[in-house]
């Protein structure tokens, strides 16, 4: 009973200290909300109508033949592109700034393509695709669009005499595309805001954990720590109080961030709500354990801060807190399985936009809790060892 009372007293003190600097406290909630909103906006792509996403490109026409003109006209009118005509000089000036990142050049001699015969591989006119160095995906997209347009135009020119007035209908795509997003949660729709709010919440939980650890580190170097050590309160109780306060503020951070996401961007729990609560609790525990770990092994405040920031940013990036992990190389995705951020992110993504049930995210809850327990154990052992050495005069 006395232990619990003392622990609550210590936690209440940390809660008061947190709110003593109101502006800093408010920033703790505002920053993740702002970043999550910004990330969500940047990566927001409507998934309901794929046709609305067009590839911006320039078309450079250097051949004045009629076949070339027809190909250019079809590229310009394609539903898959947002194309404009430009000169080569204009295209070369625009590409470095990605305005746009792709230019398709139909060079002199392209007209010879109209005389192309199936099986003739010796004389093939060139289509040039100029692109920004970082626009590899768009380059492949452009290549596909150009291939489709040219092959359709060639087929039409060869078969025009046979098909007569039915030619347009004959060369329409002979199948329909029905694209369906598939996830374990059934009718799931990717929501960039869900992803960014999950990611930024987790990242800033860890940052709060770090900040709490740094506060503890600072506290241990002040006179109040001597006074606390002289009081009839065990180190275990002090650490429990510290962890409780950190976790409570972390939970408030979760509520504020997701509350804002729900009200402004419709971020919601489409899967198990209990799963969401368990994951949030586990993540808050992870933040508290991270704080104690920073205080235990951080050494000096400056060193602890710089190393912690590096580690948190690293595990946030690899763990998929910034960008979905499918955009990362396979070895990074494999590595991410050894990080708590990855498990937490997959779990939160699962219960928010993927619509997963409790059973599906329990492994994530267990893994995040296990990481928190390991961090906590290391921190407590180290801090107890430090206290023992301090008491014996081995500073």
């Amino acid at each position, binding site marked *: 009973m006395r232990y619990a009372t003392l622990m609550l007293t210590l936690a209440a003190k940390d809660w008061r200290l947190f709110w*003593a600097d109101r502006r800093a406290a408010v920033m703790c909630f505002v920053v993740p909300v702002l970043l999550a909103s910004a990330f969500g906006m940047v990566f927001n792509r409507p998934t309901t109508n794929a046709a609305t996403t067009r590839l911006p490109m320039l078309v450079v026409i250097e051949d004045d033949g009629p076949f070339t003109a027809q190909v250019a006209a079809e590229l310009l009118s394609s539903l898959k592109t947002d194309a404009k005509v430009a000169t080569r000089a204009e295209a070369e000036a625009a590409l470095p700034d990605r305005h746009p990142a792709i230019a398709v050049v139909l060079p002199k001699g392209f007209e010879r393509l109209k005389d192309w015969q199936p099986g003739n591989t010796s004389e093939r006119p060139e289509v040039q695709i100029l692109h920004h160095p970082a626009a590899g995906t768009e380059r492949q997209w452009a290549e596909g669009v150009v291939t489709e347009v040219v092959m359709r135009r060639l087929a039409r020119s060869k078969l025009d005499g046979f098909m007569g007035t039915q030619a347009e209908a004959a060369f329409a795509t002979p199948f329909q595309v029905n694209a369906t997003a598939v996830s374990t949660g059934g009718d799931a729709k990717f929501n960039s805001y869900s992803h960014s709010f999950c990611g930024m919440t987790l990242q800033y939980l860890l940052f709060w954990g770090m900040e709490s650890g740094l506060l503890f580190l600072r506290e241990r170097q002040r006179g109040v720590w001597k006074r606390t050590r002289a009081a009839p309160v065990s180190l275990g109780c002090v650490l429990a109080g510290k962890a409780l306060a950190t976790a409570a503020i972390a939970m408030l951070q979760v509520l504020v961030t997701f509350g804002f996401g729900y009200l402004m961007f419709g971020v919601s729990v489409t899967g198990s709500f209990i799963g969401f609560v368990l994951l949030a609790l586990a993540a808050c525990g992870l933040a508290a354990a991270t704080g104690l770990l920073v205080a235990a092994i951080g050494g000096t405040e400056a060193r602890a801060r710089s190393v912690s920031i590096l580690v948190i940013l690293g595990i946030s990036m690899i763990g998929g807190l910034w960008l979905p992990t499918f955009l990362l190389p396979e070895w990074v995705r494999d590595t991410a399985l050894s990080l708590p951020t990855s498990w937490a992110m997959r779990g939160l993504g699962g219960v928010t936009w993927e619509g997963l049930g409790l059973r599906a995210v329990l492994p994530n809850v267990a893994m995040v809790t296990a990481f928190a327990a390991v961090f906590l154990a290391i921190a407590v052992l180290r801090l107890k060892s430090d206290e023992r050495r301090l008491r014996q*005069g081995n500073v």
Partner: protein
Amino acid sequence: MPSTVALSLTDVRVRYGDRFAVDGVSLDVRRGEIVGLLGPNGSGKSTTLAVAAGVLDAAEGTVTVEGISRATDPTGFAMRVGFVPQECALYEELSAAENLSFFGKLYGLSGADLRRRVIRVLGRVRLQEHAEQRVDTFSGGMKQRLNLAVALIHDPSLLLLDEPTAALDPASRDALFADLTRLRDDGHAVVLSTHHLDEAELGCDRIAVLDRGKLVACGPPAELLRCYAKDRQVLYGHLRVRPPRFLHKALQKRFGTRIELEITGRRLRLSAPTNEDLGMALATLLAEGIELETYRTPAGTLERTLHCGTSEEEPVGQSGRVGDTERGR
């Protein structure tokens, strides 16, 4: 007034690496007395206080507070000790009352009893009107008074203060000693560390001189003076503003090596073999442009005691035991 022994240190040794920071110190402190631990930096004063406060374990020897050892009853031990560390041991972001409530709760206080004690100790250190004010808005003197109040919240029998006057101006220092005297009169045992001789001489009932971890002299100031006093006159002063340069040269030019002058921050200590030399040296300093805010010339001085006691000479009244000091009284 109760005369029970509040703190008892018996042959206490504390090791820092391969050297003893406290080496075989034995000292009893009774309720109703103020004992000053006196010695130069590194003499073991703070370590002795840390052991007495229970934040440091003695490698050898025993430490008891009212007969209770920390090893057998850590809670009982802690409840009887009020510790004032050298640094400001307060949460500056919280108010005075919040600090007192927090530390009071650590000592098991709660409810109306805690509220009553908060009001009482704030009144005791004359801070009742600043109860809800954040500590980071306090002056140095107010912080030190609150520092003391926090140590008193659970009404300990033993009060330990590590260099309590280090950052105080003369008026705040005098006020602190007035507070400590009242606490002594109320039956508390007070142990404080200082390296200012005038404070120890004027504010303490007994002085324990430490050097390199050893207790080299202990007794009432008058007794130590009888043992050691020589004909050297001392003046302690507090400067109003930073002193001009070249004071030492001016004194040396006129008096040679007869006059000693030490200036630490705004504290000044001037010593001379005779009263006449002291007066002339002071006149020289005033002519050079120093401005004294306060000064005092104690009738006797422990200056010589410390010099003698911290040398290799055989000290007198070395034991800190109560019985031994009684002999000299």
